[in-house]
């Protein structure tokens, strides 16, 4: 991640109104009693992470690696507490082993929100390449995943997908596309 030279788009930096993408994600998590939110940060996710930290309903904290976060929410699920992991595309790319050896075989409803880098204006060649590995990995394990592009579909997809993950005891990846979030653009 090259953090210094880019800025978030104006769309992503808007306030935390309930109808912003991140406001909808936060409310959907809360409505589904998902209170444990480990994450590895991403610029686009910043308003969501900030608002999760500010809301005492959630236990929100950074982990050193994405698979660590997957381990934490898996343990929490078995202990009776629901969680979700926030990450970037490049972080998802580190997860094939833990998905195939923990979440899937143990039938754990792992809920992942992935901020999508690598498409629709990507400026870092490595990000565009790692993005192309994400859906093949998800498909190779036959994992449920949705790419969310529209604000008016976000709540429906997120709410239904969380409920499906829990009831079918299967992981789900919700990919937050730049069409939804504004993405990260090279503005300098």
């Amino acid at each position, binding site marked *: 991640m090259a953090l210094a030279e880019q800025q978030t788009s104006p769309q992503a930096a808007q306030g935390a109104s309930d109808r912003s993408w991140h406001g909808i994600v936060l409310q959907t998590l809360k409505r589904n009693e998902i209170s*444990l939110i*480990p994450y590895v940060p991403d610029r686009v996710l910043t308003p969501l992470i900030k608002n999760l930290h500010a809301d005492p309903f959630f*236990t929100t*904290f*950074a*982990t*050193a*690696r994405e*698979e*660590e*976060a*997957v*381990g*934490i*929410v*898996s*343990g*929490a*699920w*078995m*202990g*009776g*507490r629901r*969680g979700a992991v926030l990450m970037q595309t490049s972080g998802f790319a580190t997860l094939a*082993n*833990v998905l*195939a*050896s*923990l979440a899937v*075989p*143990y*039938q*754990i409803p792992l809920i992942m929100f992935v901020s999508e880098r690598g498409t629709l204006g990507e400026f870092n060649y490595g990000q565009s390449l790692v993005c192309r590995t994400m859906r093949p990995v998800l498909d190779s394990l036959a994992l449920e995943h949705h790419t969310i592009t529209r604000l008016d579909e976000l709540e429906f997809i997120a709410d239904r997908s969380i409920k499906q993950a829990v009831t079918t005891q299967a992981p789900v990846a919700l990919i937050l596309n730049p069409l939804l979030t504004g993405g990260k653009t090279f503005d300098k």
Partner: protein
Amino acid sequence: MNTRNTKVMNRFDVTSRLIGKLKHEEAVVGGIGNTNFDLWAAGHRPQNFYMLGSMGLAFPIALGVALAQPDRRVFALEGDGSLLMQLGALSTIAALKPKNLIMIVMDNGIYQITGAQPTPAAGVADIVAIATGSGLANSAWAADEEDFERLVDEAMSASEPSLIAVRIDDKPGVGTTRRDPVQIRERFMHGLGVREPL
């Protein structure tokens, strides 16, 4: 205490001593390979969780259990090679400070199960120094079996997370965990009171 002053113990013996001390349905998460093989051999309990992959995640999984059930003591057993894959987890735990989490590292300096190759840390790194440097002040080497039991007793009523490192020999695990992940997970959830059997 430096590792040079510690007795070389045996994983199955130490694990059996730990299990013998558990009277309050404490959870135990066993890392992959010999660590959970010996946990299995020490006598299956519904509060045991056995990893069959995801090397290095015993502490994160146990952290999740500890955050979900703050009134239950949660133990995690991990090998030194496994821990080396996920050292960042020590700082995550140090930052969250779950007082009900107790981490035990079985350190033989080798990847015993793959042919006893030395780990990159063998001979140069000190697990307790790493843990302390990661923010886990309540970390210690067990000098011998009695000291291990004393450290476990202390950890049972500690007000911060504890890490106990044990220098062990190069013996393989005594048993072999039944590799049935769904049953392992379901039994564990029953053992933690999260679910009732069908």
